[in-house]
């Protein structure tokens, strides 16, 4: 399982681009500090979908109460990283 944060960031960007059908951005050019809600337009149902794909990919559970905190790709990557470490 990949725990390297920069790879996680790229993978999350890929998932978001894929699920939200975003154009004009690639996993490499996606700014990991962009506010997903204010600047990308992600809503709660989008986030729930992304959370399910991440659950499949990393085998971690993302609590519904944590959604409000998951505002950037970097924060999501750190969240995943912490979950994986605490599962070790």
């Amino acid at each position, binding site marked *: 399982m990949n725990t390297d944060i920069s790879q996680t960031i790229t993978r999350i960007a890929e998932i978001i681009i894929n699920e939200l059908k975003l154009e004009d951005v690639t996993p490499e050019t996606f700014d990991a500090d962009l506010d997903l*809600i204010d600047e990308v337009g*992600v*809503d709660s149902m*989008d986030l729930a*979908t992304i959370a399910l*794909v991440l659950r*499949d990919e990393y085998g971690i559970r993302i609590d*519904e109460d944590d959604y*409000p*905190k998951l505002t950037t790709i970097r924060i999501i990557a750190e969240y995943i990283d912490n979950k994986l470490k605490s599962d070790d």
Partner: protein
Amino acid sequence: MDQGATNRVYKFSEIIADPAIGACWQKVRKYFFLRESTYDMSNRCNIRCEGCYYFNGEKQFAKENLNVSDWKHLMEGEKERGITFVVLAGAEPSLVPQLCQTCYDVIPLGCIASNGLNVLPREIDYRIHISVWGNDQTSLEIRKAKDMLARQMVNYQDDPRAVWVYTFTPVNIDQAREVTELLAANGQQITFNMFSSPVGYSGHLRHTPETLAHTRATMSELLAEFPQTVLFSPYNIVAHTHTRGLHDLFSCSYPRMNPSTAIGLGRSFRQYRTDLQWDRAAACCVPDTDCDDCRHYAAGSAVVTARMYRHATDPTTFSAWLDYVDTYLAVWVRGYEKSAPLCKQLIEPPDLVES
């Protein structure tokens, strides 16, 4: 598809790999862009019903604003902040059709809650929810209106905007059959609502465990017998007739019960009063309802729908959630066609606290 038959952990990709589940998932997710807010349109009504949600609490005393340009300005602002679906309610929106038209001209997806005694112009192509609280004898008693259903049916004959919303109270459960049969014979559609007590109400319309069970059995019979007429699903029945209310089961995400303004309803939902003001502390689709007793159909449409993640545990539970969302869209969005339920069993909602 047996919920809990095994403790197997499913991947989401495995769940949606099932062709029927995958098709329904793709069908409903196209509507994830819907972001609702609700608006009281007028502080007047042409009838006065016992237990009416509007004539409880402070909102009924808000000044009425009939200025079309103020409403246009409000709607443009709503559109600007991302609202894509409006619910026009209290007290009786058909008394102010010009305001409904103004809303429709700016935000073309929405729904109007009406008692159905006035016909709304066809140009306002929103879904129209027509309230029914029992047969005409009961309506006469509690709504003081004669031949209510008969008049509603004539007014909205062959009108694809219309869906009747039958509110189950402890005293009208057995009348739902008569109403459903009449609507079915007339090619019209019905969905179900539950009387949910206003704050402080302890009168005879409050449901008890016995009346919830009786309602559950009645809804199940009607759904099985009139699948083309009844817009509901087995999971709707579970969610709305459970002894635990919607908030207890699903943790309500409306601002009134949700301090977070970061995302979802807590961020975008507003409930405007007739003076075009809103108050976050009171903001939900049914302000002044007792959250502990809330089983309201409008509440469930947002509260259950928002809880996708916790339902994505196994094919059966996710199917039940998809049925609920499919029903919600059929009831609220013009032109959306409901599919047959994927999950025909009455399954328990997933636990609030995930393991």
